[in-house]
């Protein structure tokens, strides 16, 4: 069976004054119809850049230097601009981390929503407005009829975020890339929005890539996870396995840093992973995680760990020392 999306060996670089910066380094994953993938990792790990690369929206000093992105059999990395515009915002929607990447500050949201829809569908303004209202209700915008004539700055932060989600849903896309879609939302509305996305994956076979730093949300919504660190996927596999039995020391650290609601207050310090993620222009030799790693061995400072399969499980880990990894070549990619 062919995948809805196959990202292989993706590399993204930014040409800067003092040389190239590799933001994404050999990222590979697949997504099937109706499947839900969580992309997690610390700030600056390369999650958003991965999302931008999929819809071919890496701009000027940046470029895709290697790899391919197959969507429905077409390589998006090489698709001419015109054909890409047909896919972007139509069959693939991205919910940007920055709502103002979607919203035009000088247009009312009614105009923006209708124009988006009319650019991709042969429908009237009246019909487009009806769809817009339906989607705004789905994301719990109150009094949507009156809101259509408002400008983006007249909404609250969380409302803007929900309007961007409504815009992404307008064209009933086959794939949604949702980059931190609910950071500004309280738990109740956040849960409702996640339920809405889950429902669309189940009923419309929509694929979902959920980019977030919130492991709680990821564990509720996704069926598989890829953990990124300094531009690479360091661990990937079924959500359940990764949350309950993380193998990579970085993933372990992320899970341990979660606040425990039973132990609130009294200046309880959260367990931090010691140190910070290195700057991409000054990556350490060997495994980029080794300066912060508790289980590193001598090899970690010299050799970059390859991603390898974990015996008996459909998961991969890129760590020299993680327990249980089988030797490199035995992994078979499904459908390869």
């Amino acid at each position, binding site marked *: 069976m062919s995948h809805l999306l196959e990202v292989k060996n993706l590399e993204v670089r930014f040409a800067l004054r003092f040389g190239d910066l590799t933001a994404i380094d050999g990222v590979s994953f697949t997504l099937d119809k109706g499947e839900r993938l969580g992309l997690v990792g610390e*700030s600056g790990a390369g999650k958003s850049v991965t999302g931008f690369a999929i819809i071919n929206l890496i701009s000027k000093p940046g470029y895709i230097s290697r790899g391919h992105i197959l969507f429905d059999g077409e390589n998006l990395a090489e698709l001419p601009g015109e054909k890409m515009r047909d896919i972007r915002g139509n069959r693939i929607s991205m919910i940007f*981390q920055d709502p103002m990447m979607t919203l035009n500050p000088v247009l009312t949201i009614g105009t923006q929503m209708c124009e988006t829809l009319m650019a991709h569908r042969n429908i009237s303004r009246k019909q487009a407005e009806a769809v817009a209202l339906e989607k705004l209700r789905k994301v719990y915008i109150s009094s949507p009829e009156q809101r259509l004539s408002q400008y983006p700055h007249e909404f609250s932060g*969380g409302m803007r975020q929900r309007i961007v989600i409504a815009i992404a849903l307008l064209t009933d896309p086959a794939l949604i890339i949702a980059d931190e879609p609910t950071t500004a939302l309280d738990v*109740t509305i956040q849960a409702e929005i996640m339920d809405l996305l889950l429902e669309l994956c189940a009923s419309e076979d929509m694929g979902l890539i959920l980019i977030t730093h919130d492991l709680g949300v990821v564990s509720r919504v996704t069926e598989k996870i890829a953990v990124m660190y300094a531009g690479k996927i360091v661990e990937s596999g079924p959500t359940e396995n990764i949350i309950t039995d993380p193998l990579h020391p970085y993933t372990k650290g992320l899970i341990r840093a979660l606040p425990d609601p039973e132990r609130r*207050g009294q200046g309880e310090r959260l367990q931090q992973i010691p140190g*910070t993620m290195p700057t991409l222009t000054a990556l350490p030799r060997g495994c980029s995680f080794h300066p912060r790693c508790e289980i590193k061995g001598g090899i970690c400072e010299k050799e970059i760990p390859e991603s390898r399969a974990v015996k008996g499980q459909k998961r991969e880990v890129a760590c020299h020392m993680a327990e249980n990894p089988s030797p490199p070549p035995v992994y078979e990619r499904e459908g390869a």
Partner: protein
Amino acid sequence: MNSRQTEKILSVRNLVKHFDISGGFLEQLAFEKGKIIRRHTVVKALNNVSFSIAPGEIFSVVGESGCGKSTLARTAIGLYPPDSGEVFFGGERIDHLSPRQMLPFRARMQMIFQDPYASLNPRMTVRQILEEPVFFHRPGISRAEAGDRVAAVMEQVGVDPQWAGRYPHEFSGGQRQRISIARALMVDPEFIVADEPISALDVSIQAQILNLLMEAREKRGLTYMIITHDLSVVAHISSRVAVMYLGSLCELSPADQMFDHPRHPYTRALLSAIPRLGSKKKHIRLTGEVPTPIRLPSGCVFHGRCPYADARCKTEIPLPLSPEPGIITACHGLEEGRIPLSPE
């Protein structure tokens, strides 16, 4: 000047802020029952909100998206003029000041905006963004001294100072959020309003930033007003918590009281929604029409969703009352004693 306000760093009294979103004249016209009428659409974002913050406090404001938290923050520090009500800062009334008269207050209070993208000028490098408030509020400072300060503050928020020459779009979302926190720390403010300061950050950096803010409080006696939807953070750091619903204050209590004995029915609903990792408990579903500040419910704004609502709740607006010193609630059911106190 009465003495009660001078011991407070910030006091707001009966703040009201409405936004007219009727649009142009033609857009306001509507046809109703055979007649042309002119219709005004008004968002009632803040309705009679009062509270005071004492020096050194960490005062949190919580409530669902769109309930008026950011509007409250902006009105409180003089970015929006209130429609009515009063704002006092350090005992002085500031809500009616001209921008010029406001200047000396500007350096004493800083705001970390909810939207780090919109609040960072895309045409300025991070160094320029961070130096700007320093040169503005301390004109005598030398270039070298400002530069040192930039490097030190960038280091503190975990962004490599070598990147100071770059533009905001070259940073990731979380890095930009940290730059807007750095900007607020550049001058030495007495009071910081932080609107969702850590929502785009992962837990390990959240902890780092929170620890940094708490450290600044201990060292320099800073006072904070923090807006966040993350209730576990609120429980963790706040001294007092204000709960808002549709532009009204429902409850104001010390944080431990609030979390151990929530009083107002809305506070109880809000706290019951805190997710616990691993628990598969379904959240409380939102039902019915989404409440809107454009057509405010009559009486208590929460009555449509409240399990204790009765006839009085539907008609009469509950006033803020203090059942115990330090606690304020606005609820008829609590006042009448017909709502059982929540068990621990």
